């Protein structure tokens, strides 16, 4: 897969391994995760059955500030925000409401938001953090793994570590010690020692 420096699917059935490589590739691409995951190792044992995925997160997306999608202009009655894209409009409004109070925020049209606080520094508003995408990314990664894993594997264990993640799923209850041993072994494949 493009973008990943290491990507391996380990399975006793070569046909299954090959197709699961393609499935993982398609799904990570669909969810825009192929740039965020650096190394990925998937281990499938259809006999047990067991699906295990371990990976390293390459880059965390940066914080989204108001300046990234809007420009602020100081006026006599406060600050006027000119919205470029509406993607983060809803979380921004919630934050502005919490900070300045609902009465002081008006939205005359889709692309304009006014903060009626006289003397407010527009630069200060632009620096406000709206969203931390890394919070949602772990969600996205686990969702991707659930999607990649064969359906019906409802006994799950997912661990998010610093810069890495692991996902184990099966339809049977599994021996904790065996899984820990297996996880350690597979994490070593992506260069993580626990």
């Amino acid at each position, binding site marked *: 897969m493009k973008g990943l420096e290491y990507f391996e699917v380990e399975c006793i*059935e070569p*046909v299954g391994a090959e197709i699961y490589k393609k499935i993982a590739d*398609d799904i990570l691409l669909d969810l825009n995760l192929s740039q965020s995951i650096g190394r990925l190792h998937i281990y499938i044992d*259809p006999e047990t*059955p067991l699906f295990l995925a371990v990976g390293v997160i390459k880059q965390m997306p940066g914080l989204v500030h108001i300046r990234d999608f809007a420009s602020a202009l100081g006026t006599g009655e406060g600050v006027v925000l000119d919205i470029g894209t509406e993607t983060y409009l809803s979380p921004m409004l919630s934050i502005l409401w919490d900070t300045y109070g609902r009465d002081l925020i008006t939205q005359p049209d889709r692309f304009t938001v006014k903060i009626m606080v006289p003397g407010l520094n527009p630069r200060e508003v632009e620096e406000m953090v709206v969203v931390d995408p890394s919070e949602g990314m772990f969600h996205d990664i686990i969702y991707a793994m659930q*999607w990649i894993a064969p*359906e019906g594997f409802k006994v799950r264990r997912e661990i998010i570590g610093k810069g890495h993640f692991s996902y184990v799923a099966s339809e049977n209850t599994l021996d904790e010690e065996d899984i820990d041993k297996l996880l350690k072994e597979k994490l070593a494949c992506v260069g993580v020692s626990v």
Partner: protein
Amino acid sequence: MTVFVPITYKGGVYRHDIIIDLIDDLGGYIVQKHMIAQEVVLQSLVPKDDIELIRKISRPLAGVVIEAPLVGTEIAVVSPSLEIHHLPHTSCDVAEYLRSAGAKTNMIGLARGFGKRIANLSIEERDIINEHDCAVFMLGNFETCIEYKMPALRRGINVPIILTGRPSTEALQRIIDPPVDGYVGGIGRIAHRMRQQEGEIDHLDTLVEEVSAVLSRKREEVAKDPLSINPARLMAVLDDAMDITKRSTHPTPVVVQIRALRVKLPYDTYADPIAAIEIENGVKIGDITQILPSRMRDYILIRIRPFSETKIMV
């Protein structure tokens, strides 16, 4: 006896009634009619000798006549669930491809068909699948899983089964015991739409061939003890008497199967009036068929009885 050949006619809306009248005059039957924007698609059964005539008349209307082997059949496309793992890819691709070959497909997502050990088939699902001409089981990528879960999924199913999965056709044949009626390898779970000719569309073509081979065997079986009435003719009689197609909002209010009809009308209200409809010379629909409640909603399933039982042929 006239030999009917299943065809699909595709052409513009403009003057398509000429073709409808022609098929009617030739003694053929229109099984399904779709109007999609400016296009008309007619799935019909026509006498074999008259195909050339239909071709000739449809040429000035820019219509095309294609032989569609699956017209007049209803096929269940069974997938382990209707979750994102199986839909929209593979299941929809397969159902759509079978439909383009003329079949009426119903997609059946099992409530508990996923997993390996936990895979199961409910009684309602089993009965609904048994109301079709054949069932296409769409399983996954691992031999071990298919081998293990197939016995649970096929339990009680008495219509022909065509099994698809990622392992090769030979591997599928090896692991399934007792054998099912058809096998198509190379179609497993994927996460993208089937677009490539090689390795994707080719397998779908093989599937259509396999399904038509299985259904021709079924048709031959039926021909040994012929039905009291041709299902397409029964549909025409029913539609003439009750105007179902005109009054219903269903895309296919009457579905033609190889030895049955599914009528999308409530059973309680319409079963008796249908049984009382006269076909010809005093023979009523109720005399030569069993009118049963379908497990699918409150529809009616009309099973046509064979000549050997009724001693009537209309």
